[in-house]
C-alpha cells in the first residue's frame, strides 16, 4: 500500500507562497493597465474622428480626478513593466565578443538609453520642447 504523497499546488493562491512570485504577478498585472491604456487611446482617436465638439468633451473628461488617477497608475505600471523588461534583456540576449561576454549591465543599459532617446524624440515631435 506504499503510495507517494502528492502535495498539490493551490492553483489560485500559489503566488502568496514567496515574495518572488508576488513580484512576478505584479509584473503580469501591469499588462492590464497597458491594455486598458490601449483601449483608452482607441477612445481618444474615436472622439477625435467624431469632430471638434466631441474631442473637446473628451479633453474635459481627461481633467477629471478619476482620469488623472488612471493615468498615474498606468504610468507607474508602464515604468515597472519597462524596467523589468529591460533588466531581463541581458538574460535573453547575451552577446559574446571574441571569447568574453559583454557585461549584462551594458545590454540592459543600451535598452534604457534607446528608451530615453525615443521618448525625447516623441516629446520633441509632440512639441513639448
Amino acid at each position, binding site marked *: *500500500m*506504499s*503510495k*507517494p*504523497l*502528492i*502535495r498539490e*499546488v493551490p*492553483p489560485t493562491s*500559489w*503566488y502568496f*507562497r*514567496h515574495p*518572488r*512570485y508576488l513580484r*512576478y504577478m505584479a509584473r*503580469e498585472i501591469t499588462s492590464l493597465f497597458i491594455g486598458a491604456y490601449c483601449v483608452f487611446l482607441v477612445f481618444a482617436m474615436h472622439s477625435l474622428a467624431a469632430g471638434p465638439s466631441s474631442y473637446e468633451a473628451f479633453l474635459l473628461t481627461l481633467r477629471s480626478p478619476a482620469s488623472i488617477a488612471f493615468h498615474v497608475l498606468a504610468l507607474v505600471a508602464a515604468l515597472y513593466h519597462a524596467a523589468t523588461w529591460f533588466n*531581463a534583456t541581458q*538574460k*535573453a*540576449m*547575451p552577446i*559574446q565578443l*571574441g*571569447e*568574453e*561576454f559583454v557585461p549584462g549591465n551594458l545590454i540592459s543599459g543600451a535598452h534604457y538609453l534607446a528608451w530615453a532617446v525615443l521618448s525625447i524624440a516623441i516629446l520633441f515631435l509632440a512639441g513639448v520642447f
Partner: protein
Amino acid sequence: MKERLVQLEVLRYNPDTDTTAHFQRYEVSCPEEGVVLDALNKIKETIDPTLNYRWSCHMAVCGSCGMMINGEPKLSCHAFLREYDGVIRVEPLAHFPVERDLVTAPDDFIEKLKRVKPYLIPKAPKPISEGEYLQTPAQLKKYHRFTLCINCMLCYAACPEYGLTPKFIGPAAISLAHRYNLDSRDGGRDARQEVIASKEGVWECTFVGACSEVCPVHVDPASALQQVKIASSIDWIKEHLLPGGGK
C-alpha cells in the same frame, strides 16, 4: 567548538501508515558553523533513526540533498544554520511526489532529461582515426555555464509553472538541451527542438525567473530558456515567412 541549539520542524510522511503528512519538531545542538544537513544527521544519529532524507557529498556537488528550507528550495548541505532565526521548517522538494519524509521521487525529471537527448550528436559520422573534435576557448565559453548543472532539481521546486503544469519539460532539462545546441561539435539541434520548442517545452515558461534565483551553481536556467524562445521564434519566422523555408 561553539555550539548552538537548533529547532527543526520536519515534514514526516510514512507511505505505509500515513494518508497525510505532518510536522515533527526536533531540538538538537550543532556546531555554530553547521548546515541544516548536519542538524538532520544529528537528529538521525541521536534522536530519531526513522527520519529519511537523501544526501551524499556534503559539499554542494552531488545535488542529492535538495529540500525546502523555510519555503525556499536549498541544498541542505549549503544552508547554514547561522543564517536562520527561530524554528527552521524543513520540507521535501516542492512539486515532486513524496516517497517518505524528505525523500522525493525524481522519476519525472529523469524522464524529461532523457527526452531532450542530453549528449553530443555529431553532425556526421567521423572515424576515430580522423582525430578529436577541436574547439576554441570562445566556442567552449559559449555553453560552459550551462554544463554546470548538478541535477539537484531545486529549479523545478522553485518553478510555479512546473508545479501547476507538470508536463512542462522544465528549467534544467531545457537548459541542458540548450547547452548541447550551443556546442560547436553538435549536430542534434533539430531532434532536440522537436521536444523543447513544443508547447510542453519552452513555451510553457512565463519567465518567473525563480529557477535562476535558487540555482546553487548559477547555471541561470531562465537565461537559457529565454534564449531558446528567441532561437525557436527565429526558426518559425524562417520556416513560415521566408521563401523556401529559409533553407
